[in-house]
């Protein structure tokens, strides 16, 4: 039992559990202490010193984010001494920062800018250090731009990359005035283990880490007379876009999203959820085929567990960290890439537009999707399957640029042919969603019955626990699946690459006997993706999750294999799951990469 500690903050008494920090205690009584290096998702660093407060009777100030409370403390968060020091901290950080705000991508969305304005950092501050520094702007990655001149060395990105994601692409290099955030041998981000997950972008307080934006190119395509611009929207976008346009977290804005895209001038507004359903058919059948090979044919070469492949951050992670398990990754492409391949083949034919005149755009909660679209494996239509990927944030920016009052837009529906989706496709956006969608379909294929969960909600695979396990026993299957009778299908769900690493280490050690693993690179799954509105924290991610499951429940169709447009696609084009056309367009292989 931890003890209760009594103290006062700004003369207000407060009682908190032992081990609580001053910052947390202040929050309890609604006192906001400014912070920069602190982030709810990360361990405490205590290095920006912006959150310093005065303790009565103490000579030195205390970093409130790192200092646990003690009995009888009298804390002043806004004493002259604390204020002056805090203002100094902000002035110092500004002096080290290329404060070129009007030209900055993060203008208006920068924590340092906010604090500078709050504390009125005038012009007669300290000496501008930028002219004395050599800095690099790394824009070689298709996903992430890293601009050292904007960096305030708070190390949120380093902690994100090393703790939350266990990737280790970003680290602190050099010391003193030369200290900076860098990569292995200062190589550009795209040459190192960076998975492009963009979680660092979500947590960077300034414009030092941003997504590479393709907005202007998309505007140009939209305005190009000969081009037919097709846009797809990922599941997680519809539960987060509102946040970037003044709405509360957790609002479902699907209809407004569609309406906005149409207003922006996209020719076909379609849904990635459609190909999410398609992924389930292909990947579900792949799983069943592998199980058959393992259990019936006793094929020694069959690789289990099967892991999902929808998260490009996860795919690049396994390419770097566990290349020996690449054959365990589903060959099914991600929904984005399946969509791209079909847009320039099946869809082009349907709407009678030459594929070279189709421009395929996707709106993703993700920065790694930009990289995925650029992969050489992703040109099976004969063209670049997905031409440009925009993040949720970029779309919000386009909507603002177009002067659209998003909140007042009437709801609109997706176009047909590749716009219909099931609730199973929607939940791809949440951790555990692909697993749940796959189980809803696979179980029914095998047994002819619905999954034995109330309302089809497979709750054991839901939630925010980093690694979750579930077992489903297959009983009384259809005759052709007799070999699965009594088999306990062991499933595992992990989100965040630190958890992915944990799971893969366990697989490698042979201590787990999973059949199927769902891995999403980002905390919370795609809804917590690196392209989603900033800020992010567990509370926000939980609200988006709840919205996604609401959207699922509201759908008339809840199972991927019942999506009528998917059924029609097989009938008219693909013929059968894992068939020849599927192999050509919808499946691929990945490759081993360096370990640094």
């Amino acid at each position, binding site marked *: 039992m931890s003890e209760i500690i009594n103290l006062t903050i700004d003369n207000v008494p407060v009682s908190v559990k032992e081990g609580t920090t001053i910052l947390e205690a202040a929050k309890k009584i609604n006192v906001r202490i400014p912070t920069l290096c602190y982030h709810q998702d990360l361990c*405490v660093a*205590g*290095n*920006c*010193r*912006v959150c*310093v407060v005065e303790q009565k009777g103490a*000579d*030195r*100030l205390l*970093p409130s984010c*790192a*200092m*646990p409370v003690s009995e009888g403390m009298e804390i002043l968060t806004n004493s002259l*001494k604390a204020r*002056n*020091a805090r203002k*100094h*901290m902000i002035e*110092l*950080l500004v*002096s*080290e920062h290329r404060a070129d705000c009007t030209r900055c991508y993060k203008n208006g969305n920068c924590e340092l800018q906010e604090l500078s304005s709050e504390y009125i950092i005038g012009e007669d501050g*300290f*000496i501008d*250090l930028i002219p*004395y520094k050599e800095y690099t702007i790394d824009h070689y990655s298709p996903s992430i731009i890293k601009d050292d001149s904007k960096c*305030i*060395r708070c*190390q949120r990105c380093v902690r994100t990359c090393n703790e939350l994601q266990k990737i280790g692409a970003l680290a*602190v290099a*050099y*010391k*003193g*005035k*030369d*200290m900076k955030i860098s990569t292995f041998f200062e190589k550009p981000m795209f040459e190192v283990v960076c998975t492009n997950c963009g979680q660092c972008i979500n947590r960077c307080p300034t414009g030092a880490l941003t997504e590479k934006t393709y907005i202007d190119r998309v505007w140009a395509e939209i305005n190009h007379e000969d081009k037919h611009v097709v846009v797809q929207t990922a599941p997680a976008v519809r539960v987060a876009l509102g946040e970037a346009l003044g709405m509360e977290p957790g609002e479902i804005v699907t209809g407004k999203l569609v309406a906005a895209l149409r207003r922006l001038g996209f020719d076909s507004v379609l849904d990635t959820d459609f190909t999410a359903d398609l992924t389930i058919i292909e990947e579900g059948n792949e799983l069943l085929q592998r199980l058959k090979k393992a259990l019936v044919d006793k094929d020694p070469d069959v690789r289990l567990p099967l892991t999902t492949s929808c998260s490009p951050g996860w795919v690049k992670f396994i390419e770097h960290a566990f290349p020996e398990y690449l054959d365990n990754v589903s060959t099914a492409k991600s929904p984005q890439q399946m969509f791209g391949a079909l847009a320039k083949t099946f869809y082009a034919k349907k709407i009678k537009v030459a594929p070279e005149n189709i421009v395929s755009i996707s709106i993703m909660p993700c920065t790694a999707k930009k990289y995925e679209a650029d992969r050489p494996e992703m040109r099976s239509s004969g063209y670049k399957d997905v031409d440009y990927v925009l993040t949720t944030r970029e779309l919000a920016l386009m909507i603002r640029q177009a002067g659209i009052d998003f909140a007042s837009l009437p709801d609109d529906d997706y176009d047909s042919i590749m716009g219909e989706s099931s609730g199973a496709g929607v939940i791809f956006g949440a951790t555990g969603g692909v697993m749940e969608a796959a189980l809803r379909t696979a179980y029914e294929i095998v047994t002819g019955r619905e999954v034995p969960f109330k309302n089809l909600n497979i709750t054991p695979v839901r939630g925010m626990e980093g690694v979750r396990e579930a077992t489903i026993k297959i009983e009384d299957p259809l005759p052709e699946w007799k070999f699965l009778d009594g088999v306990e299908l062991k499933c595992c769900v992990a989100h965040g690459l630190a958890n992915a690493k944990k799971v893969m280490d366990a697989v490698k050690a042979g201590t787990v006997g999973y059949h199927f693993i769902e891995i999403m690179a980002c905390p919370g799954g795609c809804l917590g993706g690196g392209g989603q509105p900033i800020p992010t924290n567990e509370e926000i991610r939980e609200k988006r999750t709840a919205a996604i499951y609401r959207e699922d429940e509201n759908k008339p169709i809840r199972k991927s294999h019942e999506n009528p447009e998917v059924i029609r696609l097989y009938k008219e084009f693909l013929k059968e799951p894992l068939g020849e056309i599927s192999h050509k367009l919808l499946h691929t292989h990945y490759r081993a990469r360096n370990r640094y």
Partner: protein
Amino acid sequence: MANKKLKRLDLVFKDEKDTESVLKKTFSRSNADVINDLISSGLKGRGGAGFPTGLKWKLTADAKGDEKYVICNADEGEPGTFKDREILSKVPHKVLAGMAICGRVTGAKKGFIYLRGEYRFLLPGLNEEIEKFHKLLEKLDCRFRVEVFTGSGAYICGEESALFESMEGKRGEPRNKPPFPTTSGYRGKPTVINNVETLAHTYSIFKYGPEKFQDLGVQDSRGSKVFSVSGDTPNPGIYELEFGMTLQKFVDDFGDGDTKAVQVGGASGFCVPRKKFGKTIIGYQGRLQGESLPTGGSMMIFNSSRSMYNVLHNYLDFFVEESCGQCTPCRVGTQQLLLGIEAVKKGERSSSYLDKLLELAETMRVTAKCGLGQSVANSFASIVENFKEEMIY
């Protein structure tokens, strides 16, 4: 001149070959008695910070945990300090004995000497000495073992928590405190970390008893201290002197007759101008009369040929380089102080900018994460305030 000389002591460097009997005698006593002796001796950390050594041992002894460590901080990096090098080369057995006794009373079975990278040349001799010492410990049925860990030359790694990080294979950056090393040090385990000289002093205390140590020095500053004397002096070198002398007496003994200022405690210490020599006492802050200045032992003497602007510039250059870069006040503050005095000197900023810099230095003192950033203000303020005209013209 002879009457002006301070008394030279020979406690630390006296080459006593009785490690075995000192260890035997101490091992035969209760841990509480040993710690009490250390506490009553009044010994304080000789690295400069002056934390009571006995208390440090006691806190670690009382800390829960079956894995504990004793670390000898030999990362002697303060500009103008070179006494630990001498102690480790002349009387390493005293340091080792201090560590073994500390291990005994705290429950630590493993000790490390964190040796400054530039002192690597001491390694062969030190390892030889450790091997001999281990044989002695075996004979005494003591399982304590010592290993040397060599640093790589970063000044910040002398800061205890950065030192632990460095030993753990990580970047040498100070940690947040609390927790303190006595409960969570190397590898998160309770750890005693003492300066080389501190450990050497414990040897004398255990050999002669706390009273003899207490007889030396004054009030809150007991015992003797090894000083590294450098700069404008006819007699640079290492001297063991009694705590509590005035700086005037020191200058009379070691100065060249034209001493303008003494930098006490290295780059992170204080600069004392001639007019304050008389009332400055060398010792830990406490109930001493006048202004007392603690020191890790560095005494840099400057005569009137020296530009104090250059001296400060040199120190700031050092800090700009040696800050770990982790916390804002230290990383950016040091750069601003350096560029700031340059700008004032060049006339690019008015002399009143020095006041803004003094305020900044004060902020650094109260906000920096570790002793490095906190103590930049010491030299900065004491030089700027006492030699303002030299900063401007």
